[in-house]
């Protein structure tokens, strides 16, 4: 914690675009005219895919004028098809696990970000499975960070593990599939843990759970999985590969994919932060394209893409710009969200501020199940 020093940065003002300006400029890039598809009615078989554009990306490097070059797929392909929320505020703790879990419970959780504990409030997965009486394999969470292993269900005694999501941790799958990887090569980059959590790094012990998930859920032999993994350039790409396989083999109706490559920003290397954003842009589009090409998903899937939060502003003297998300300033709390799919209006820009915990009640309304403990509000623009 650094006491902020005096910082009169008036000379920066010509560089600063208002949020409205840059978001309008991004929308202007979307050439497809607005189409209303709201006639789409809630129906059995609807699916929802949530992708967290993580961990932590600023407007400056995404939808601001110079940032748009980093997300060409979002801008050209997904934005024209989406209802875009330009101000999604995270009022909670800006740590990736606790913030992502808060988005999933609809409550700003206050547990220690690094504890890895299950949240006290029911998750979206539990509401979904209990409310719609869905089976175990219909809700899944995929995360590249092993620290997210307990995000699939809460400790609430009325919900809990019997209604929770299956959790796939691709790095652990790979560790299980290719024990001894660090000596015989190829996987270390994929097994990279976050900068903030090196202790969880590569080499986690193989478990029967992971091997069983590989064979019974994903229908991979350990050798096949390891062979495929060799062609992956990052942990997030491995996660999306796993997601595609899961969608093909199990077709869950509720799927949450947390991406995390961007958080390399904590190492202070701006180039790697940008690489992470560009890769995440490609992967989001890859997920959407897979949805459109899959008979199980096409025409009945709503996808939400949102960062868990932003990162500190360059002008904030208490931080070091893109590197961290420690100040709680506007840039670090404000991000965006895209909603795409049947029933969601296309090429629509929502300027009002919404809250990152609004996602759970919105999906509950969309799919038709109650979310009694979620504290956010339904977003009427997408239901």
């Amino acid at each position: 914690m650094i006491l902020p020093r005096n910082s009169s940065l008036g000379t920066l003002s010509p560089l600063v675009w208002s949020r409205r300006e840059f978001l309008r400029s991004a929308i202007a890039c979307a050439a497809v005219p607005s189409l209303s598809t709201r006639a789409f009615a809630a129906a059995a078989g609807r699916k929802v895919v949530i992708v967290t554009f993580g961990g932590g990306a600023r407007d400056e490097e995404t939808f601001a004028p110079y940032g748009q070059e980093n997300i060409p797929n979002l801008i050209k392909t997904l934005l024209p098809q989406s209802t875009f929320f330009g101000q999604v505020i995270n009022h909670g703790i800006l740590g990736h696990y606790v913030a992502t879990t808060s988005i999933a419970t609809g409550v700003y959780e206050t547990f220690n970000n690094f504890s890895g504990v299950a949240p006290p409030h029911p998750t979206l997965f539990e509401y979904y499975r209990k409310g719609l009486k869905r089976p175990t394999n219909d809700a899944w969470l995929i995360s590249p960070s092993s620290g997210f292993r307990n995000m699939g269900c809460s400790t609430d005694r009325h919900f809990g593990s019997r209604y929770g999501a299956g959790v796939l941790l691709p790095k652990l799958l790979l560790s299980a599939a290719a024990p001894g990887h660090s000596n015989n090569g190829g996987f270390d980059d994929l097994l990279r843990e976050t900068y903030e959590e090196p202790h969880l790094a590569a080499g986690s012990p193989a478990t029967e759970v992971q091997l069983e998930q590989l064979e019974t859920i994903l229908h991979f032999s350990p050798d096949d999985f390891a062979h495929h993994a060799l062609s992956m350039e990052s942990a997030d790409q491995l996660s999306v590969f796993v997601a595609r396989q899961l969608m093909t083999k199990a077709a869950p109706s509720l799927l949450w994919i947390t991406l995390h490559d961007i958080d390399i920003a904590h190492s202070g290397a701006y180039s790697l932060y940008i690489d992470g954003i560009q890769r995440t842009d490609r992967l989001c589009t890859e997920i959407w394209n897979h949805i459109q090409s899959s008979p199980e998903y096409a025409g009945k899937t709503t996808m939400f893409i949102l960062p868990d939060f932003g990162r500190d502003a360059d002008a904030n003297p208490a931080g070091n710009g893109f590197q961290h998300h420690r100040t709680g300033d506007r840039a670090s709390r404000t991000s965006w969200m895209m909603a795409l799919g049947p029933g969601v209006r296309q090429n629509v820009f929502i300027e009002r501020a919404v809250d990152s915990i609004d996602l759970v009640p919105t999906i509950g309304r969309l799919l038709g199940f109650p979310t009694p403990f979620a504290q956010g509000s339904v977003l009427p623009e997408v239901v």
Partner: protein
Amino acid sequence: MQPGDLNQEMFRDYSPLAQKLACDHLALLRELPLVLAAVLLRQVIVLDTSFPRERATIEAQFSFLSSLTADGLHQLTQGFASLTLSPELIAEDWVRLPQKFEEELSAYLWASHQIDTFHSLATQFVDTVLKAVPPAPPATARWAAVVIGPELRKDGYPLFRKLQPNGVFFTDVSSNNGASAILSRLAKRAAQTPVPYGHWYIDGGDPLAVESKAVSSFSWAQSSPVREALLKKIQSVIDNGSSGPEMLRSIMADWAPREGTRDTRDPLVDQFVVNMYGGGSGTQIFSTTFVQWSARELLRRAEPVSLVTRYGPRQRQRSMNEMFADAAAEMDYAGSLVDADFGAYYTWINLTRLVGSESAAFLAWSESHRQAIAIGPGLPRGTQSTEPITIERLLDIVTPPATPAGA
């Protein structure tokens, strides 16, 4: 424990200057809300390894606060008393271990949704203090130069894009030995205006020679014993598997190298380098981050009148454990250029935060791209020059006159 319970004996473990300052202002500390007392002691406890400018700032802050009437002090600090603290925090040994307290306070304020209130109070407090006791103007107009080393190259990359609106962008800069010319200018400034810890050179690789002992300097290459010792420590903590990320950070922050691993023979500079590795994020693995963060912290703490930073190539990204375990690796020249470009932008931002920034001059230059950006008084903003120019001529344009700012 509450501040009202403080006594001189509690500062017995403090270093001499810190102990004296705390004891001299004991009556003040007893009157402060706990949060503010602990945060101020966090500044005091490192007073003996602080640079002259920051030491003066801390001392002036205490003198100002001690000079206030009881009502004035209450008015300025009462907001901190409104923050609610847990019994565990109050029971912490915040006098002997104010840094640990501050880390736990930060986590608690986030969890209890009080962090924004704290930031607001802190900003208001600092603004009031700075208004009452403004920092002294620099001894001469400030000058900073960022050199992007010759190996760093990325064809087609829009260099200095963030900086261009603020100065003149030169697209055809020639040089036979530009980095040495810049360092000669640094040495000249140090000779003309001697300021203890006021003239600095940070190198992200092997340092070039500087013809002045009045210039403080350190480098990525020469500090490798410190870095490697810390990396070994980190690796042992990771291998041990018993410490989480918070514990690891605390261990790094508290870490001190064994005798013989320090390199500059100046205790303040040595301690600063240790702080950069122990308290920085990514400074231990990427030389570009080491340079950027060091420049940021130097500008914040030492408030130099002259600063030259030089970026070299950083290692290619590998797994975190691999990077922590082994310093030798393939270099990423294109990525390093992007890092250095943004590092230059951040150095300029940090320069503008200092008193006298309106007269400060700034130069960033890439040897391989033959491009430079010059910002300063008299230089038109948002302009471009395609005329050929030498780095020596550019230095003449950018270097402010060696007279006290505001004189």
